[in-house]
């Protein structure tokens, strides 16, 4: 009688292979059909006045690099982005309007549209300064992103600003409305960019200027009920139905650059593409990316003495609304 020995572990390996095959089939069946076109407009402005530099609006160091890094990432993620990536002198209002119009003409409702901007942002007050947008019925002051040409020492003092060469929160909302995609995402790495977000049903306990502290539990509860009772329709700015927005800072906060040669927020946004899959499903939603950015800014920027003493702390903000989108695939 002869006994044939199987090499040790063969049966185990066969079972493991079968299990792996089943798991792969299950995994494949769980893979989402993300069969739609993705368009991204990416703008970064570092050079506002190449000859002099405005005293009130200094040139920035890394915002153009932010845009170029986003272009690379979004290309890898399957976005059509390169024709619509513009930095410095190319990042003008005329080009922005043209890029939006080009995409509006070729995209469909089933596609995804993303707009990313890194550069100066700010609030422009009417005279005299009005209440915050959080006041009922108030949409003042407007927030603006400053495209190339809109800030320069050659422009009239004291603001050295030409608002006809750039866009406000409401103007950008109107431009977004011209794009037929149902899914729209907007990401700002700019000061005061939280003011672009038009949340009208959700309240954020973190004040528009986080150094002013946070609302307590009962204030937050009271505010949520007040918003619910008073809700009739979405108001101005970029509402959740217009687009899901990630903003680098609050309505009354500055955002900063310099961390790892990027804007602080953009650095963690780039990182989120590979590190923010909180639920391990292989997809990174806007909320997951935001959570990563929020957590990292708080731990790696806000907790440093430089941020607390020399610069300032800030918190990113996000749109409310019931819908979330896939931003990256891990």
């Amino acid at each position, binding site marked *: 009688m002869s006994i044939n020995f199987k090499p040790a572990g063969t049966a185990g390996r066969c079972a493991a292979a079968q299990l792996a095959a089943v798991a792969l089939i299950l995994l494949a069946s769980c893979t*989402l059909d993300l069969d739609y076109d993705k368009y991204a407009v990416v703008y970064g402005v570092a050079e506002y006045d190449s000859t002099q530099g405005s005293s009130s609006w200094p040139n920035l160091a890394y915002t153009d690099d932010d845009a170029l890094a986003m272009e690379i990432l979004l290309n890898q993620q399957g976005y059509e982005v390169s024709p619509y990536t513009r930095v410095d002198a190319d990042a003008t209002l005329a080009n922005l309007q043209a890029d939006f119009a080009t995409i509006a003409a070729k995209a469909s409702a089933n596609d995804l549209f993303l707009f990313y901007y890194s550069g100066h942002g700010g609030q422009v007050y009417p005279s005299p300064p009005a209440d915050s947008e959080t006041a009922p019925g108030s949409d003042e002051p407007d927030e603006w992103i400053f495209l190339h040409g809109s800030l320069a020492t050659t422009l009239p003092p004291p603001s050295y600003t030409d608002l006809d060469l750039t866009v406000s929160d409401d103007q950008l909302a109107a431009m977004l409305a011209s794009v037929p995609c*149902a899914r729209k995402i907007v990401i700002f790495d700019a000061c005061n960019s939280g003011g672009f977000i038009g949340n009208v049903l959700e309240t954020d306990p973190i004040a528009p200027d986080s150094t002013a502290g946070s609302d307590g539990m009962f204030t937050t*509860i009271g505010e949520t009920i007040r918003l619910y009772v008073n809700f009739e329709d979405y108001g101005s700015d970029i509402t959740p139905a217009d687009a899901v927005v990630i903003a680098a800072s609050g309505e009354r906060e500055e955002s900063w650059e310099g961390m790892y040669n990027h804007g602080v927020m953009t650095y963690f946004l780039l990182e989120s593409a590979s590190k923010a899959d*909180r639920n391990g499903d292989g997809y990174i939603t806007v909320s997951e990316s935001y*959570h990563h950015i929020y957590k990292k800014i708080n731990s790696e920027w806000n907790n440093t003495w430089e941020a607390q003493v020399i610069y300032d702390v800030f918190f990113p903000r996000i749109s409310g609304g019931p*819908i*979330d989108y896939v931003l990256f695939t891990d």
Partner: protein
Amino acid sequence: MIEHGIALHINNNMRRTAILAALAFLTLIAPIRLPAAERPALGVGTRAGVAAAGNPFGYDGDFYTPKAQAVWAVDGLLDIPLFSALSLVVGLQLHGTTASSLTGGWAYRSHWGGALRLGTGYGFTVSPPSRPRRLEIGASAGASFNIDMYTWTTLYFFYPGVFLEPFIELHSRAPKRHSLALVLPLDYYFRKDLGFFGSIGVGVMWRYTLQ
């Protein structure tokens, strides 16, 4: 406007269905013998189920189709007998709703939070008096007031709702202070950012009658 009209139509239908179901349930169990009023009871329980969300306000209603979300909750309640078989139910709930599937590259967001639930309970003994363990069926119905936070954000929002919870409850032997109930919770919520949002589930609750 068309989408909004559809949302209202669905809301009214669902409300009407819920009310009719509650009336039918109470009519069916009305002939059953009522127990004497009891003492207050404390309860804790847990539940899980599935929610349906749809018709997001202001969005393209054709694109954002309804999707399912899983729901869970942990409940604590105080049951105060009023008269006969009727009781006042005051509950606190910790609950969560998972994100829907990402089919199509989008999802209804995950959120979690707390709720104050106020309602009335109505129960009837259905087991013969000779049995050592009393079996009771009934239902509680009322309103919920919910404060939730979207997961992975710092955004809070409020929404009210109504609930109907049929239950079947088995009481312990003497001294009959413990009971275990199987609950079938039906919740409908009045969210202003969604045309409809409701859930159905199953849960268990342990009740302890105070002396």
